[in-house]
């Protein structure tokens, strides 16, 4: 089953992490991608900081362009990967080892991808 896993963090909490600690976690993030290389497909990306986000929203006459992310939430998406594993338990087991989870305010959302479009052909 293919899942998109979205890595989120809370910038205001990230600021409290010491640079040494952060560097150590990043190193393990790098290793994590190595360990799970077989399950991670080529699609995926690490995103520039949320301060670079631009959002285009539905507007009365025409779409409206604004500065910032689409959601008011404190958590922001930092990146995503597409993984291919047997089932949700396998995805959860893999995600539980995501090194950033030791830092407060970090989470990972797991969503299955739509892969079967056969119902649209009918």
């Amino acid at each position, binding site marked *: *089953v293919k899942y998109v896993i979205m890595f989120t963090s809370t910038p205001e909490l990230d600021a409290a992490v010491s640079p040494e600690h952060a560097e150590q976690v990043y190193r393990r993030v790098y290793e994590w991608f190595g360990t799970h290389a077989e399950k991670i497909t080529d699609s995926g990306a690490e995103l520039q900081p949320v301060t670079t986000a631009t959002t285009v929203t539905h507007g009365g006459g025409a779409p409206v362009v604004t500065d910032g992310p689409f959601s008011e939430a404190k958590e922001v998406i930092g990146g995503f990967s597409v993984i291919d594993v047997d*089932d*949700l*338990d396998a995805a959860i*087991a893999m995600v539980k080892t995501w090194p950033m989870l030791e830092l407060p305010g970090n989470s990972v959302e*797991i969503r*299955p991808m739509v892969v079967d479009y056969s119902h649209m052909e*009918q």
Partner: protein
Amino acid sequence: VTETDAAVPGPGEDRAAASDRLLARVIREESARIVAALTSRLGSLDLAEESVAEAIEEAVREWRVRGVPPNPGGWLTQAARHNALDRLRREKRYREKLPLLADPDETASAADADEPDERLPLLFGCCHPALAPDAQLALTLRAICGLTTAQIARATLTSESTVAQRIVRAKRKIGATGIPLRIPEEAERAQRLDIVLTVVSVMYSEAHLVPGGDASADRDVADDAVWLARVVAHALPREAEAQGLLALLLFHRAREDARAVDGELVLLAEQDRARWDRTLIAEAQTVLERAAMLRRPGRWQLHAAIAACHADAPAGDATDWLQVLTLYDMLLAYDRSPIVRLNRAVALEEVDGSEAALREVDLLQGDLTGYHLWHAVRARMLRGLGRDDEALAEDLRALELTANQAERRLLEGRTGR
């Protein structure tokens, strides 16, 4: 169903109610196995469960009139298969599954003693942490215990449409997100089993104190919970906590007749202990001893050990409170929830007096201020200290927060309202 007396009406019970009771037991024995077998055949829990649920509705209608057929499991299996075929033919997207149902079904109902219980993987799927607790409970009641949506709605005090929606969403999520129906691997087992045991325990307590209901209302769901605890304990004999929960529920079940008398609640201290079911207590003790021999302590075993202390005491004032308190202290290592701490405070009062206990209770105000029993327990401590006016105010607050009729009458008696 081995109990031959199952269809004999109890005192004051009419024939229809007695046959409903038999029906419920037959359905409970068969339903999860049929759902499991049909799911693995069709590769869709949604479709399988829907077909079995429909078969159960049909069975309830038909068996009430014609009686239970000689092979009820076979009847339900056939009906479910028929319903599944109907659905497959109706819905285009299922067409390719039709061959899966081509051969007549050979689903065995009573499982081989050596076979692992095929209901367990289904149960772990229903209680998957990716499902909300409400959905875990509703789906377990339906797919495992074979309750109808209406019965679940009554037992959980939720509207039928909400229950139906929860079940549909949960089943779809299981299918769409690839939640596996299997017993988790060793590393994940303890955590996942605890969720299953929590669902069973919630099932028992919900059946017990349905707000607005009387003390003896919906007894059958409590019975379903004991039954399910037994299924799990039996299927996983090496899991000490599964034994622990079964022991706990058996201890509680044993007190049932003394706890709910003519629809009135009787508190533990005032219960007529001669009405406790000694056979169930003996069974609970055996199960708890078996759990202890596995040497893997946990919260359910400790809850059961506390219940065992009460069962051992010949009278309320002969309770070994020091032992109870010690067990609560041990329990805190596994479960620091405010409810556990509130119960511990009651034992603390018996050992160290009302003042020490009141201090503990007051620490829980932030967490439990909306919970009627926090106020009732606080009232008890205040009364112990001779602060009767404050105690009365707390009991009145407890009364305001209680919807259950039997609990209300108990508190009304205390406050003189």
